[in-house]
């Protein structure tokens, strides 16, 4: 099973003779190229300005009503942020005073960035909150500050903090002890019966992380309507009217909500005006006329949007970016999707084009600037979250296509330019998702193909039909009907999220623009390692890696497949039960201590109801889910056991247990330093286990249109999607299934012993949710599609299929047509999502060996695109190992 650079394909497919690059790409404008070069040279940098002022104000207001206290603290943070504007920027503003700036939010959680010997850190480690951190690899290159150097301290293997700010960071963090969402939630989650089981689950990394204090918001779609329609002063006026209506009447929380929104908006106004002042300062310094004029123009624009609705496309783009950053600054957030921006901004763009004040070239320049700004976003989080889940990405997903309110195609000329700039200015963010519908014009779809072929991994292709069916099933009881279902978009990397149509009035004409209308659609039980749960079933509730008991012994002899399956269902259900309850408590602590204000103001119908998102102010609130990881590895393992133990009786379970503990006679992945199956090396026990390992590898594998294993996959999916509805969220709504791996298949694989499908200890699980395990799909893409659609995808919030295609296969116009037909075939079979890496695997090997030469190389992981050099080795190895299709 050892690999060589000559034959890297799992089953011996011979690669083409020469390493092939992707098809020729467009180039970015000079402005965007300069900005991107600056980005390439910049490191992720943390600062303490915002958390200092937030904490200082919080402490000054002891005794104040919590939501007012929160608003005042946010205001203090925003109005004290030092503005930084880089030369050539047409869009300004950022999270903090660095290009890739971010900051700790100790009001959410403070333990993970304390020193390892600190008591807070040790307590977090003991309770299992940080176990995933220790099994995560973070990319060694790009913008990651992987180790402390000189006067810079490395935090979580990614963020640099100047040594001058370290003492204050620790002081501020300690002030939040017993007051942060993490600490308060932890205090009360221990009251859940069976809580100790939850800690064991976390320590074993059966569950990846708690969502309530790590990433309490995100995986949702922004709604920019209110500031676009009313401007900030207009929204303040709405809140003042609201206060007048509710002051002194029952449900007094509405009064405090309106007051809090006003306070927060005053902070935002100051923040924007500080940037305007900085732009004026720079204009005064500037000698070069063009740059001087741009600074002046920027200052005037920022001043304008600090109060009023946008006047043109450029204003509108700046405004949505400003509010996007503002939401990101109120919580640790991943997956805050801008949504269907090309449709939201189209009325402004069309009007400017008709008036002759905007042209195609200027639009492209602005859209490329937008891509750079989104790429600058970092999220300050623990190593397990930022590396093991996010791979350094933050999943700001921009959707194109889909349908309008009236059911006709929503694709437009601006979206064609968004695709164009996705090709010309390749950056990880915003990633693009094309909401595929049969009504979309061929020209638009072929433009999408051109972009996918360029190789940056976007757009992902997502079925509009499947998504709407899920939405109507999930939100019908909250009043969603077909027309509103059409307003959906992807939140985060792949979370189907509800939207609503908002009546944008421009010059007296109503334009129905889509925007998100729910809070985070992916919080709750995140993520559950299916292969690890099966491991505990095989070993009677024990984690044999650590020797710790996780679940009570089932005491079953597992004499039939049905008994094995029932035992798995039992352990899985126990995990979901206790994690649902503990997460509900954590999210309750979040909404009480750190309620959303910026995002609440934006989402319908919070302003109308006078309630924030945590008080179900949004239109749709069925938003908690259970996320799985390692679907295909689980089912392949079940198929192997069914065949080898129960149907053919080639081995008994005791033999499997021994083989698993001895890793089928191989060194572990930790020992080899490589994380994919193809790179593992046998040890002296190999011959003892050669037969069982070979038969495990040869057992039926998902992805080959084989009913033996596909029927087990369907059984798993039907049961999983249904069982999640039995659990209730904090908002007393049924939960639902979510099936994306993001990057969790790496650290979760790292702590899992060998599995009965022949996968070896520590190696990465299958990616996505309906992807084949690397190298095991041997009957072509259409067989893979048949397997992937053996169940109804609309039962789940998503499904995820990742494919890797050699660039030669889709080259030229004929290749484009063939490629589109391939995607169309999958969508017509009921597939929800497919995404592609168009890359020669040998190029990835070269990039792994010589990363400095590949700083700009992008690859698709699982719902997101990332710079190769910023990926951890676990994920790099997995992407290299994926089956590479050399014909369609």
């Amino acid at each position, binding site marked *: 099973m050892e690999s060589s650079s000559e034959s890297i394909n799992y089953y011996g497919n011979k690669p083409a003779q020469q390493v092939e690059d992707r098809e020729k790409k467009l180039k970015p404008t000079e402005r965007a190229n300069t900005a991107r070069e*600056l980005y390439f*040279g*910049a*490191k*992720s*940098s*943390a600062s*303490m*300005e915002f958390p*200092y002022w937030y904490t*200082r104000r919080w402490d000054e207001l002891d005794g104040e009503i919590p939501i007012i206290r929160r608003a005042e603290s946010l205001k203090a943070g925003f*109005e*004290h*942020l*030092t503005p*930084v504007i*880089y*030369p050539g920027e047409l869009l300004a503003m950022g999270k903090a*005073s*660095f*290009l*890739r700036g971010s900051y700790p939010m100790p009001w959410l959680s403070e333990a993970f960035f304390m020193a390892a010997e600190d008591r807070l850190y040790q307590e977090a480690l003991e309770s299992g909150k940080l176990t995933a951190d220790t099994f995560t690899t973070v990319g060694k290159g790009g*913008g990651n*500050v992987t180790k402390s150097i000189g*006067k*810079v301290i490395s935090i979580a293997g990614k963020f*640099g*903090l*100047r*040594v*001058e*700010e*370290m*003492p*204050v960071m620790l*002081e*501020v963090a300690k002030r939040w002890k017993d007051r942060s969402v993490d600490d308060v939630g932890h205090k009360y989650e221990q009251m859940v019966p069976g809580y100790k089981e939850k800690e064991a689950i976390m320590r074993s990394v059966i569950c990846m992380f708690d969502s309530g204090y790590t990433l309490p918001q995100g995986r949702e779609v922004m709604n920019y309507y209110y500031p676009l329609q009313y401007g900030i002063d207009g929204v303040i006026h709405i809140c003042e009217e609201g206060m007048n209506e509710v002051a002194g009447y029952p449900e007094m929380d509405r009064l405090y909500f309106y007051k809090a929104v006003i306070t927060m908006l005053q902070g935002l106004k*100051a923040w924007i005006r*500080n940037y305007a002042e900085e732009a004026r300062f*720079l204009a005064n*310094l500037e000698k070069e006329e063009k740059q001087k004029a741009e600074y002046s123009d920027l200052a005037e624009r920022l001043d304008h949007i600090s109060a009023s609705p946008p006047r043109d496309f450029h204003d509108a783009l700046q405004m949505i970016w400003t509010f996007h950053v503002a939401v990101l600054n109120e919580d640790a957030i991943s997956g805050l999707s801008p949504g269907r921006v090309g449709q939201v901004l189209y009325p402004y763009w069309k009007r400017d084009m008709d008036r002759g004040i905007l042209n195609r070239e200027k639009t492209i320049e602005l859209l490329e600037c937008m891509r750079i700004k989104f790429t600058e976003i970092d999220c300050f989080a623990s190593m397990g979250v930022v590396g093991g889940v996010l791979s350094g990405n933050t999943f700001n997903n921009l959707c194109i296509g889909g349908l309008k309110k009236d059911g006709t195609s929503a694709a437009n000329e601006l979206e064609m330019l968004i695709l164009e700039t996705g090709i010309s200015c390749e950056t990880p963010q915003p990633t693009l998702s094309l909401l595929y519908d049969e009504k979309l014009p061929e020209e638009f779809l072929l433009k999408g193909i051109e972009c996918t072929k360029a190789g940056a991994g976007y757009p992902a292709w997502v079925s509009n039909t499947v998504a709407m069916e899920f939405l109507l099933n999930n939100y019908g009881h909250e009043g969603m009907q077909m027309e509103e279902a059409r307003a959906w978009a992807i939140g985060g990397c792949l979370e189907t999220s509800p939207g609503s149509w908002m009546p944008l009035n421009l010059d007296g004409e109503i334009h129905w623009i889509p925007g998100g209308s729910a809070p985070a659609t992916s919080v709750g039980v995140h993520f559950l390692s299916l292969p690890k749960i099966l491991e505990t079933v095989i070993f009677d509730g024990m984690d044999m890696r650590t020797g710790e008991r996780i679940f009570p012994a089932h005491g079953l002899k597992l004499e039939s497949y049905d008994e094995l399956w029932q035992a798995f269902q039992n352990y899985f259900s126990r995990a979901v039960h206790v994690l649902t309850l503990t997460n509900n408590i954590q999210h309750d602590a979040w909404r009480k201590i750190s309620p959303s204000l910026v995002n609440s103001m934006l989402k319908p119908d919070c302003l109308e109801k006078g309630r924030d998102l945590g008080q179900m102010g949004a239109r749709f609130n069925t938003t908690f889910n259970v996320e799985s990881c390692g679907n295909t590895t689980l089912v392949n393992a079940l198929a192997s056991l069914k065949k080898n133990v129960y149907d053919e009786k080639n081995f008994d379970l005791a033999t499997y247990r021994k083989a698993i503990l001895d890793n089928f006679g191989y060194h572990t992945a930790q020992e080899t330093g490589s994380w994919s199956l193809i790179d593992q090396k046998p040890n002296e026990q190999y011959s003892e286990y050669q037969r069982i390992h070979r038969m495990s590898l040869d057992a039926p594998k998902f992805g080959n249109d084989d009913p033996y294993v596909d029927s087990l996959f369907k059984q798993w999916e039907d049961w999983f999607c249904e069982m999640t509805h039995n659990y209730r969220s904090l908002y007393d709504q049924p939960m639902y299934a979510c099936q994306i791996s993001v990057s969790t298949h790496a650290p979760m694989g790292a702590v899992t012993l060998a599995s009965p499908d022949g996968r070896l200890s520590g190696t990465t699980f299958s990616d996505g949710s309906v992807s084949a395990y690397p190298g095991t799909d041997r009957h072509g893409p259409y067989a893979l599609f048949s397997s992937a659609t053996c169940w109804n995808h609309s039962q789940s919030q998503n499904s995820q299929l990742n494919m890797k295609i050699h660039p030669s296969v889709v080259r030229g116009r004929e290749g484009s047509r063939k490629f589109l037909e391939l995607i169309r075939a999958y969508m017509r079979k009921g597939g929800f999502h497919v995404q592609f890496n168009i890359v020669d695997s040998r190029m990835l090997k070269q990039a792994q060996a010589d990363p400095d030469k590949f700083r700009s190389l992008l690859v698709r992981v699982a719902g997101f695109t990332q710079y190769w050099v910023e990926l951890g080795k676990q994920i790099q190895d997995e992407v290299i190992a994926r089956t590479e299709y050399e014909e369609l």
Partner: protein
Amino acid sequence: MSKIVNMNCTDCKYYLPVDVFKGMCKLSKQDILPDDAFCDKAERIAKCKFCGKYTAGKEFLGKCMATTLAYPDMIAAKCADFEWSSQN
């Protein structure tokens, strides 16, 4: 513009931070390092350590108005209480 010793570029109002390792000069547009010494065009930016209400404590920590946690290198350009100290 006054020459000031023992100060570095991060103390200057013309310093544009790119990341924790480097920045740019807003005047010259050249790449500079945060620990580069003040040049003859440099001007101090408002920081806690230049404020008359700031009292230094142990390394990299201090007090604002004798009561509130503060730290010397925080930019205080947007702080309503900032006042230039007469001592530096």
